[in-house]
């Protein structure tokens, strides 16, 4: 690990200002992803700003009847919150399908959204990776790509976003509240938060330098039956090959989003009109234009079958 200086921020705006004016500085909250990457020298921040003391760890009901989830709420606490379990079960399910108990106890809501890919070529510093070293190429294209992206990919990057939680947040139309270095605040719709790789795969979201996530908001509950089906190589503690988050209403209408498929949680609202007609019709729209590799073409079939299992369970 490269050496770094460390300080504890006193307010969110102060944290944002420090990171904005210190080249290469990073926020640290749970640290479960950042420290892993720092040990491998994939991340080498010269300065860390600890945001754990900022009291952003509460879950409050909003005047609109939704929830405001503090950026520092731990994954365990969010999954176990009674309101989340009752009204946003897909979010609890997604969180509990991810990582291990130890990691969920540390990992935060904002940190989960900002997780970096687990693409093996991103992790191997001897390999070309446009995400780790812009302009160096992508060794994953033409390499071992079984776990990698099938849609929204580019000639520069086929990495996936690894989060389960983010898929549920996308399904629930969450908002990402932030504060910038100048103290200005904004709410970014989750649909606009994560970006596709394009020519700049090292850019993964629309946050400005130093911009700090302070909370994630959920609109009022939408009812329906909630599902998070995750398919992976082990029954527990593994990243998704494919995951399906869905809310299905009694009349068969609903919402669906996929994990493990793209550089961001994958949801196409127009595809949801097809949900009453079944998984095949839905995925024809949802995954139109997919460009899988030889190794990961199975994900298209797997996504359809997983959605089919969700819809069958919803009808039962």
């Amino acid at each position, binding site marked *: 690990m490269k050496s770094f200086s460390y300080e504890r921020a006193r307010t969110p705006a102060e944290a944002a200002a420090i990171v904005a004016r210190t080249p290469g500085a990073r926020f640290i909250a749970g640290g479960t992803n950042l420290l892993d990457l720092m040990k491998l020298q994939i991340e080498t921040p010269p300065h*860390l700003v600890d945001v754990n003391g900022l009291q952003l760890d509460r879950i409050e009901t909003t005047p609109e009847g939704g929830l405001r989830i503090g950026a520092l709420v731990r994954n365990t606490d969010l999954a176990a919150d009674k309101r989340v379990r009752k009204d946003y079960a897909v979010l609890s399910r997604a969180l509990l399908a991810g990582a291990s*108990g130890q990691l969920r106890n540390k990992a935060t809501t904002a940190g989960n959204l900002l997780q970096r890919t687990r693409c093996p070529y991103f992790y191997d510093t001897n390999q070309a990776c446009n995400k780790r070293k812009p302009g160096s190429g992508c060794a994953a294209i033409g390499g071992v790509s079984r776990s990698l992206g099938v849609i929204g990919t580019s000639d520069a990057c086929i990495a996936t976003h690894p989060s389960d939680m983010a898929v549920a947040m996308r399904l629930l139309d969450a908002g990402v509240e932030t504060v910038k270095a100048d103290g200005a605040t904004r709410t970014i719709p989750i649909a606009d938060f994560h970006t596709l790789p394009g020519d700049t795969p090292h850019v993964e979201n629309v946050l400005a330098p130093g911009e700090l996530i302070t909370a994630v908001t959920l609109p009022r509950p939408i009812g329906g039956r909630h599902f998070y089906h995750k398919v992976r190589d082990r029954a527990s503690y593994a990243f998704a090959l494919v995951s399906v988050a869905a809310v299905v209403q009694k009349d068969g209408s609903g919402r669906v989003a996929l994990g493990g498929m793209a550089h961001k949680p994958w949801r196409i609202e127009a595809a949801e009109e097809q949900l009453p007609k079944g998984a095949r019709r839905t995925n024809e729209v949802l995954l139109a234009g997919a460009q899988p590799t030889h190794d990961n073409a199975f994900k298209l079939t797997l996504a359809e079958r997983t959605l089919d299992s969700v819809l069958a369970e919803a009808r039962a």
Partner: protein
Amino acid sequence: MDRSGEFDISRRGVLISGAASVAVTVTPHVAAEPAPPPKEAAPPMHKVAFKVNGKPRELELDTRTTLLDALREHLHLTGTKKGCDHGQCGACTVIVDGRRINSCLTLAVMHEGDEITTIEGLGTPEKMHPMQVAFVKHDGYQCGYCTPGQICSAVAVLDEIRRGIPSHVSADINARPQMTTIEMRERMSGNICRCGAYSNIVEAMQEVAEAKA
């Protein structure tokens, strides 16, 4: 340390002479008066105070020091083990403010004021924790390397089920989770045992859970 025979050349000296001429870099410096030993840039240090197994501890650490290394290398509590050092194996599991975490994936300086419990704080050879007794009885290990992490995790898992925290295998997410084998197995998936003592570990946990019920 005997430094004789080493070139006492500073990085700055090399850069300066390198700028003048590559060919004459070495000779003049070797011939010159011995320069003071090279000073490596000192890594940033930071103070932290926390309690480990009930005892207040104060350390001044290189900021890079993980909680795991602080426990093992600075406080010499070597019960907590370093396996993968990347949060994948669970050998480093300790309990911080009542919650199990991977001590390898957290910086020691981030734990100001925290209460940390390691395997040494759960029990001693003379007065073992019930989970330690059960691991011995059920042979919950072979080589024993993952055992301190397994035991810290197991103690915390039973507490999590009791506190009603749901898991991936909980059929009804709104109901209280049950003290079942399947719940315990799912919740222990962050602790790897390469000897494969899993079935005995679950039996040990089951015994402790039933004793407390």
